[in-house]
């Protein structure tokens, strides 16, 4: 039945004869592994179109949606794999292009009558690089935006037409919504069309003129039909390439850097295939940089394009040497410049550290997006609302003049002039125990550099231990350890959730130790002499404390040493030192309350 259907189809369309050139193609010099680069390029192109179409179904080209939709794709195994294939196949194609062009150059297959094959093929290379350049920034990540901004400026540096082309590409003054829609339209619309047109001319010309026979005389016994002798070589190389691409896609996947974050200390770099130009431009100044980025690549392309004409004017023997030299210098120069660029970065400690930071931020962004999904304001809001990321920034900006946040090994944020307690582990049992320890309360980690050094609280604690030994000492230590736990528990829950029985027995303990002589604790004691221990260290307590340390619950009248009130105007938030949102982020960070996957 299949045969009948095919016969019917052939009668209507004549496909059997149309396909004859392909079916009956003969290679006069036999098959060769060198010929496989062409077919592999073609099939990888097909793979790119298919994976591209699939990704298109889910990707959204807007500043808010680009990163989020790509993260969405990455969340499914199939989506992540397809995106990885799309990414690594593009790299494979660039390498294959180089191989293909060098092979054609060295075998002089550009000679008459095949000049158009050479020209269309050569034009496909920069077209393909532009295709990759329009594709990489589509993720709208930190790296993507840095890339497209730099690339826009490089385009803009071309004399005369540069600024106009730049403005058309970017869609205005700044990278924004229009930039992504433009890149997308180019990437999925215009460039595929141009490539298909050039490819059609290229392939039809190959069939018209056949493969270049080379300088060898043809002999019948070497001739072989293309199918299956060349096909099997093509498919084998393609299979190896696809296997390699799939492994890379499976194992590593395409990268997705963090959404744009202006506080990130970022050092952008171009993709590996442009590293040579990145290195080359270092030898030019600002004004002449366009020679490296625009002129040299264009001149190289023009020389290559004109080789069929140049070749006719040179003796055949010399011209092979010239071509070989050209290829060696070209590839060699590219390799040296690329390696130099990478080596320079690997030796730069600052760059290595910045890369690490960027990787961690990307992982954090992805973890937050996995858990919370992206809010309507966009993926950058995920980062700006994350206490773990924003806490250290806010602490450095507002608190680190006086407070430090360093652990036992000294790692963390050091104060510029330590004149306030070390807040690492604030309201944890150990931190509170330090406050109740006569050896530590006057140290620089607590009151040592403040007005409270050797003050009422410190001397009370010291006096408690005075003259105590043996059993009495141990008993006091146990009681104070219990107090540390009691207060640490106050920090863990809001006052309204307190268990009445527990509060009552805690109050007994605190009264017994005379804490409530100065401190209030729920129903016991009064405000005014010392900070309120009710809800000590809880979110609400800490927010109120930082907002106004001179408030009656904390250090009223002239008891406050020198801590400023950071948000004392609830009705005029613009007049405050920090916003309510920043205050909440800071407090959540100090209390260790952030999302961990």
């Amino acid at each position: 039945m299949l045969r009948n259907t095919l016969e019917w189809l052939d009668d209507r369309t004549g496909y059997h004869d149309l396909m004859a050139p392909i079916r009956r193609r003969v290679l006069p010099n036999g098959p060769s592994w060198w010929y496989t680069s062409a077919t592999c390029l073609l099939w990888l192109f097909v793979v790119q179109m298919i994976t591209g179409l699939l990704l298109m179904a889910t990707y959204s080209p807007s500043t808010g949606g680009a990163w989020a939709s790509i993260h969405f794709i990455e969340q499914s195994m199939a989506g992540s794999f397809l995106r990885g294939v799309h990414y690594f196949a593009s790299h494979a194609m660039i390498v294959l292009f180089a191989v293909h062009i060098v092979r054609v150059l060295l075998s002089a297959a550009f000679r008459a009558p095949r000049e158009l094959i050479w020209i269309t093929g050569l034009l496909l290379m920069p077209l393909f690089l532009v295709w990759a350049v329009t594709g990489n920034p589509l993720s709208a990540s930190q790296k993507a935006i840095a890339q497209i901004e730099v690339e826009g400026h490089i385009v803009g540096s071309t004399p005369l037409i540069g600024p106009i082309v730049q403005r058309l590409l970017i869609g205005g003054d700044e990278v924004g919504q229009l930039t992504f829609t433009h890149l997308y339209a180019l990437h999925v619309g215009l460039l595929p069309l141009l490539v298909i047109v050039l490819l059609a001319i290229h392939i039809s010309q190959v069939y018209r003129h056949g493969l270049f026979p080379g300088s060898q005389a043809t002999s019948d016994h070497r001739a072989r039909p293309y199918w299956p002798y060349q096909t099997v070589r093509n498919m084998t190389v393609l299979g190896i390439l696809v296997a390699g691409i799939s492994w890379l896609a499976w194992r590593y996947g395409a990268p997705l850097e963090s959404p744009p974050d202006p506080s990130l200390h970022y050092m952008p770099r171009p993709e590996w295939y442009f590293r040579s130009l990145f290195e080359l431009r270092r030898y030019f100044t600002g004004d002449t940089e366009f020679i490296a980025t625009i002129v040299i690549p264009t001149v190289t392309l023009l020389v290559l394009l004109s080789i069929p004409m140049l070749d006719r004017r040179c003796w055949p023997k010399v011209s092979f040497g010239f071509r070989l030299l050209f290829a060696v210098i070209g590839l060699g120069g590219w390799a040296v410049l690329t390696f130099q660029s990478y080596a320079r970065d690997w030796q730069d400690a600052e760059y290595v550290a910045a890369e690490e930071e960027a990787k961690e931020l990307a992982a954090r962004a992805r973890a937050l997006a996995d858990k919370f999904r992206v809010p309507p304001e966009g993926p950058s809001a995920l980062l700006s609302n994350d206490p773990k990321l924003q806490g250290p920034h806010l602490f450095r900006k507002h608190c680190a003049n006086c407070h430090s946040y360093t652990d036992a090994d000294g790692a963390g944020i050091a104060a510029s002039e330590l004149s306030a307690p070390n807040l690492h582990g604030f309201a944890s049992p150990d931190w509170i125990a330090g406050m109740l320890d006569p050896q530590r309360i006057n140290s620089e980690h607590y009151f040592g550099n403040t007005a409270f050094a050797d003050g009422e609280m410190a001397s009370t604690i010291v006096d408690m231990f005075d003259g105590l030994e043996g059993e009495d000492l141990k008993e006091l230590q146990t009681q104070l350890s219990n107090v540390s736990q009691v207060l640490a528990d106050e920090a863990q829950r809001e006052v309204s959730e307190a268990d009445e029985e527990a509060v009552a027995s805690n109050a007994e303990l605190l009264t017994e130790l005379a804490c409530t002589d100065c401190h209030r604790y729920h129903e016991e004691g009064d405000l005014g002499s010392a900070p309120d221990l009710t809800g000590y260290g809880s979110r609400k307590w800490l927010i109120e404390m930082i907002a106004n340390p001179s408030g009656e619950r904390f250090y009223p009248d002239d008891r406050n040493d020198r801590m400023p009130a950071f948000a004392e105007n609830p009705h005029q938030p613009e007049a405050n030192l920090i916003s309510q949102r920043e205050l909440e982020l800071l407090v959540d960070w100090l209390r260790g309350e952030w999302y961990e996957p």
Partner: protein
Amino acid sequence: MNRRGALKWISGLFAAACTLVVAIPGVSFVAEALRRGPRKKSIVQRVARLQELPQGRPVQANIVGSRRDAWTVYPDEVIGRVWLVRQTDDSVPESEHKVAAFTGVCPHLGCAILKSSDGENFVCPCHKAAFALDGEPLSEDQLGHTNHTPRGMDSLTAQPVQDEAGQWWVEVEYKQFVTGLTKKVQQV
């Protein structure tokens, strides 16, 4: 098998492998849409103050919640509408009021049900289905044409609740139902 046949076989094998490497994830990726989607839970919410409901007259209220749209979560959106009709009169104490609540989604094809201009009935603008204030579909005689709805308006449980400040509210359990069926079946 001769050499040529073997080469054809090998070519076919590699070609098939390359195709599958792209086709299998491709199909799986497209089929994701069939698998995605969280379960539609019912939402219990206070939708209107009791004093806003005049007796026997339909009042519309919004159901507010967070909505997940692919990669975005919208935290505060109107995700549903309900129609409320207070059935008991003013002499009844607040806690014993009876309020009929219906989802605003037409059981025919899902359009948003409106109230008629005189407020005596519910009407659907898409295919002119009409319902009485108790949710029952009007008959063809009453309507003058076929009533396309397969069943009456989907009722929801509603009860008066009092908040901490002493205000009385109507609390509704909002659910979504499958359109086009003669029986009321909750969406999953």
